[in-house]
């Protein structure tokens, strides 16, 4: 229940535009990863739709706030629907949590629907969870996609 509530909280921050608070959920050594290929094992030798360390993730949030971020003005409105939350295991003090994501995005009179398998690695710090790693495998990651200017 605590894990589920945390994932819902994370989603709500994104859906209500609280991107800075969302960023604060990540550890300093966090990795946020949206692979390009199905079952992709590595982000160094194969491209990724997004593969950010904490520094780059912060740039992404800052870009969303920039007054000339054309693809992000206005920011898309989103609803993250999280389901099938499962504890997959525990490694090195981190919880591996699997979930599914359905996301509705609306911007420029166009609505898009995304589906993804998600894996979080959650680390407990000061009584709360932090995200050490988040991997989002979009079902259509290998497809021909219009630009992506949202956070999953």
């Amino acid at each position, binding site marked *: 229940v605590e894990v589920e509530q945390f994932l819902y909280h994370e989603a709500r921050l994104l859906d209500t535009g609280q991107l800075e608070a969302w960023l604060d959920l990540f550890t300093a050594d966090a990795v946020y990863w949206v692979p390009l290929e199905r079952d992709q094992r590595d982000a160094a*030798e194969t491209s990724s739709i*997004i593969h950010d360390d904490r520094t780059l993730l912060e740039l992404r949030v800052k870009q969303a706030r*920039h007054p000339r971020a054309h693809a992000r003005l206005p920011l898309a409105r989103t609803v993250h629907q999280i389901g099938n939350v499962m504890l997959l295991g525990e490694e090195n003090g981190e919880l591996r949590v699997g979930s599914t994501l359905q996301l509705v995005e609306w911007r420029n009179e166009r609505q898009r629907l995304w589906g993804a398998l998600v894996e979080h690695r959650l680390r407990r710090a000061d009584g709360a969870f932090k995200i050490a790693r988040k991997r989002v495998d979009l079902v259509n990651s290998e497809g021909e996609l*219009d*630009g992506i200017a949202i956070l999953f």
Partner: protein
Amino acid sequence: MGAFDRERLAMLVQPDRVHRSVYADPEIFELEMERIFGRAWLVVGHESQLGGRGDFFTTRLGREAVIVVRQDDRSIAVLVNRCAHRGATVCAEGRGNAQRFVCPYHGWTYDTAGGLRAVPIESGYRREALSQLGLKRIPRVATYRGFIFASAAPAGPGLEEFLGPTLASFDDFVDRAPGGELEVAGGVFKHAYRGNWKLMLENHLDGVHPAHVHASSVAVARGAPEPGAPGAEHYYDIAVRQMRQNGAPESLWESIGVWATPRGHGWLGDYHTDTRLVAGLGNPAFDEYRRRLAARVGDAEADRILAVTRWNTIVYPSCSFMSQFRQLRIIHPIAVDRSVVHTYSFRMKDAPPPMFRDTVAFANVVNGTGSWVLTDDLEVYERVQRGFGSGAVEWAYIGRGHGADVDEPDGTRRGGTGTSEVFIRAQFRAWLDYMTREG
């Protein structure tokens, strides 16, 4: 040719402006598919995507689905991926190895040269009728230094004549690899936008747009932590450096040079020399790479190769590529207002592994579907398309630098400055030539 006869087409393209219908009229788009994409040499891929006989990959030639397949004699054939019988797509896989392509509908079976080898209940057909049928073979296929091209026109200029001065850009691409061997690697980005195919080609040599289109990524990169010293780089360095470089001062863009050819090709001088790259700043991997290159070709030749400074090169109408980070983009026109771009990364086989990791990081930052940079380009293409879709204003202006272009002895035309729209004007001269040429 209906409403768009030669005179009407010629009116659409004027020295410093073009009519919006070239971007927005579906009838013109159909004509482009026949007269431009149906004639020019189009890039379809790279030899590293095909190993031995029977190896194949599927892609589009212009907007037509094709199979690119290695023949028994090691030559390459490009076959239209459409059954001669009922028109079904014969091969649904992205890549693989096959001796036969079998249509899912009635089992019509083709060999790798497109020849029809079997049909069900053969007695139902006249033999001589069947002998005429097969997978349609694209008449001309040629390679240049590993890059595979095809032309749907049975006759026309040969590949090297077609490429002309952009041969040197391909040479640069390949020469930089120690041993000269490149391979497609690292995944293919496939992005789409609601805009005309020409908009991408008109953007890639445009030195004015980065400061404006990419203002937000330039700004956040300027506020980012500093990239690391040689040997102590961070993962984020490539991203930060590249995004910052898009904010280079106007004086730099003005000075770098832009060239165009009568066939619509062009290239931009380098605004991002090796000394500005992560890998170029005395970094150990780059030093090792240079050593390996020099071991193959000698010091002087290595210096010459690394001193070539071409940034993006455009091969009209299908492709844009750059050698420093080994990126190649192929544009597939889908409709007058819809385009798909496939971006390939290349690995230099004998270079130190970190060089390819830089390529992957660069691809993510600049060409990725979720990139800070590309997403703003796509947004702007779509806004341009909306503007050209409106009849409220008829003309688009392409006059930057017009009147200051310089004709070079090798037949290329150089912009008076690096921010000239000379390359757009050249693309439209080529466009008009394709569109109005008979036969």
